[in-house]
């Protein structure tokens, strides 16, 4: 019995802290984060990989967490927007988005923040085209793309 529990445990680093969970085999990382790890900052907009509201960084790469099975995350480094509260780059991104009026209903913002943060770590000075390409997976129904792109281009 003890052995079985051991096998089902998945350990990863979440926002800098070690974390172990015992997920169902078909459980998505989004469910795990929201229901088992208390990460209310990761939003569920569609549960089918279309909206990007659930975006987290896994080993620095921004991915929709609703498309990732938790069992596949063993040993990963997972970062959600809440984990970036004191990260200087993320603060600058958040401030720039807010100042540009690109945070409207805010439901997309946590995902956008992760996407932008991961982009800047790979591409320090992205041009507008690159930024819109990178943001393609993050829907903003409030229509703030242009404001986001403008704000992020100003940071590069």
């Amino acid at each position, binding site marked *: 019995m003890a052995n079985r529990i051991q096998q089902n445990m998945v350990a990863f680093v979440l926002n800098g802290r070690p974390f172990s969970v015992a997920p169902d085999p078909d459980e998505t990382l989004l469910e795990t984060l929201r229901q088992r790890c208390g990460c*209310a*900052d990761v*939003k*569920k*907009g*569609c*549960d*089918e*990989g*279309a*909206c990007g*509201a659930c975006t987290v960084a896994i080993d620095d790469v921004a991915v929709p967490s609703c498309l990732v099975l938790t069992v596949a995350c063993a040993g990963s480094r997972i970062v959600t*927007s*809440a984990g970036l*509260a004191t990260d200087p780059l993320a*603060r600058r991104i*958040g*401030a720039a*988005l*807010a*100042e*540009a*009026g*690109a*945070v*409207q*209903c*805010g*439901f*997309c*913002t*946590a995902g956008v*923040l992760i996407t932008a943060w991961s982009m800047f770590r790979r591409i320090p000075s992205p041009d507008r085209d690159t*930024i*819109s*390409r990178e*943001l*393609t*997976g*993050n*829907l*903003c*129904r*409030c*229509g*703030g*793309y*242009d*404001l*986001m*792109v403008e704000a992020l281009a100003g940071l590069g």
Partner: protein
Amino acid sequence: MSSPPPPWPWTDPYVADLSLPGMVFAAMARSTHAHAALRSIDLAPALATPGVLAAVDGRAFPLMGGVIHSSRDEPVLAVDRVRYVGEPLAAVAAVSPEAAKAGAASVAAAFDPLPPVLTMRSVGLDVPLHEEHPDNVLRDVALEFGPVDESFASARAVFAGTYHYGASTHAALEPHGVVAWWRPEGRLWVWTSTQCPHLVQHGVARLMGLEPSAVRVITPRVGGGFGGKSEVFSHEVVAARLSMLLGRPVRLILSREEVFYTHRGRHEALIDLRLAVGAHDEILGLDADIILNGGAYAGMGLVTTYYAGQFLGIPYRVGAFRFRSRRVFTNAPPAGPKRGHGSVQIRFAVERLLDRAALSLGLNPLAWRMSLALKSDETTLNGLKIGSSGFTRCLEEIARMTAPLQCGEGEAIGVAGSAYISGAAFPIIPNRLPHSQAILRADRSGLFVLTVGVAEIGQGALETLRTLVAQTLGQPTDRVLAVAGDTDACPVDLGSYSSRVTLMAGNAVIAAAAAVRRQLLEAAGDRLAVAPESLDLVPNRVVVREDPGGKGMSLTRAIARAEERIGTVIGSGSYAPAVEPGPYPGGALGPSPAFSFTAAAAKVRFDPDLGAVEVTDIWIAHDCGRAVNLARVNAQLHGCALMGLGEALMEQAGLHRGIMDPVGMLDYGVPTARDLPRIHAVVVSAADPAGPLGAKEAGEGPLLPVVPAIANAVARAAGLDICAIPLSSEDLVRPSARETPLSGEAALR
């Protein structure tokens, strides 16, 4: 005071993020039939599902739901009939979301299928959905203003077209959801993602058999609405019932698929339109026959039916007009109010026909629209009092921005114009009570705490209202806090719909702020032994207006002095529009205290081989009166541009073999950052006397002309008469659809 830190995304919970001690989870069972008699429903298998605690079906709700008194036709859970695939059938509460889902899936229902009504085109020939409407028409409205037949008889030219506008849906990024808690003291608390907390309070109370005073509705942060969260929904009522059964808080969050079934999106419309042009190129007459696909239930459809006709003419001066507007029942999820409620479809038709007429008459489409523009203080034939109109200036701005542009091969620019209400002058439920109310308290700390009933849904309502208070008090905006969206804490406000908040709640908060200002200046004047009228409020201080460096006192001292004098420093304000209805049946639907105006242009690139349309630029010039908060207005213009782009080119939420299709974000396809054209938004700012510090609406009106501007551009680029939205590349590429290119294919100028 230093400026506040930027809003960090996770700080305020949305409804799905709320957790309460002892909370359980609910899920709904939904109809798998488009149209069927519900023979029986058995909750026993659901109740036997592990983890399930309670289940309810339609028998738990004796009353019918519906926002408008005269058309309450929608059961909370189906009773003896189902009328669309996805209609709520039963609800189950369980210890986990998974158990609730499993329980809902095991609800056993037996149906006797009925022939479904799948299109609105066979109106009058189908099996009725509702006994009270044997012809399947919710309302058949016909109104005529001025001598229409004469105007067509004397016209220099008459144009006619048939236009089809496809249904679309809001697709707010946050799915609807609710946490309901029947509390031990016998009150119901409801946290819900809504645009209209007070409407939900009254609606839930009625359907639960409670007094409104027993219901408290709270809006957590709301992840967008666009009209899709402005009714009382089944999930709100069933969560309340389940909580009452269990005595525990119940959370029910809709899946994205369920959001598509909940719908209330843009009505599909079929519009026959005729236009008479006079000898001086004036619009002599407009004549429209409008059929709206309302889906299975009435919802706010009565309003839609009227708006589609009442706003036919604006933003133009029209010699005479008439319309017949019918809203038809079909076995589809109910349509409802979506951004630009009722007038987006008709705008598409009118602006398309105007453009065709301009081409044929050799008129410049922009200059012609300018010559037709309604001016300030005009009254339309149907009695809409226009107040301020910046429409001419909007068109001038569009002309200025697009003038230097050249169009290459396959490129063209289209223009369109529009006007929209700044709040309906008459409430959905007729009464003479205030539409908006506000309370403002000056706190000893130097802060001002505003309490208003509006819902912040991402449109920036609270920031705008705080700005209005701050400007009235001469203080920086961060000195004003807002408490909103809680029916226990806040005075009644009708809600965040019909573009009413800035104007109506704005006037209420200004009145409250003016009262507080008076109290502070009187107290300071008393103390300083000067007349209060000679005093002024500047950031953190009360000063003598003529001598700001001379004697005065700090703001906190002035507040303390006022407290000594009168007790709590508090001001209240309320607003009810001083507008008369038109003197005819239905004359209450259409009037507004003020109208916003918009002109838009779009530049497209068209590939005839692929039928592919690329929108490269959208220009919007919007007259929102005085812009109280420019950044928020600008964000609304961007949002309208993109939602219009989606409606014009990609979004369609209709029936496919009786099933709402698509029911997922991936298939539905809203614009992404890659579909982003260059957006050029300008605000034409001129104070309107009815607006708070001169402000009018900016949240909906700017969407109206975007769709026809794109359609007009494509028509010019492709040499086709565009009569259907969304534009489909199949239609655009099919040779049969390629009519003889329209003659006189003049560029914009």
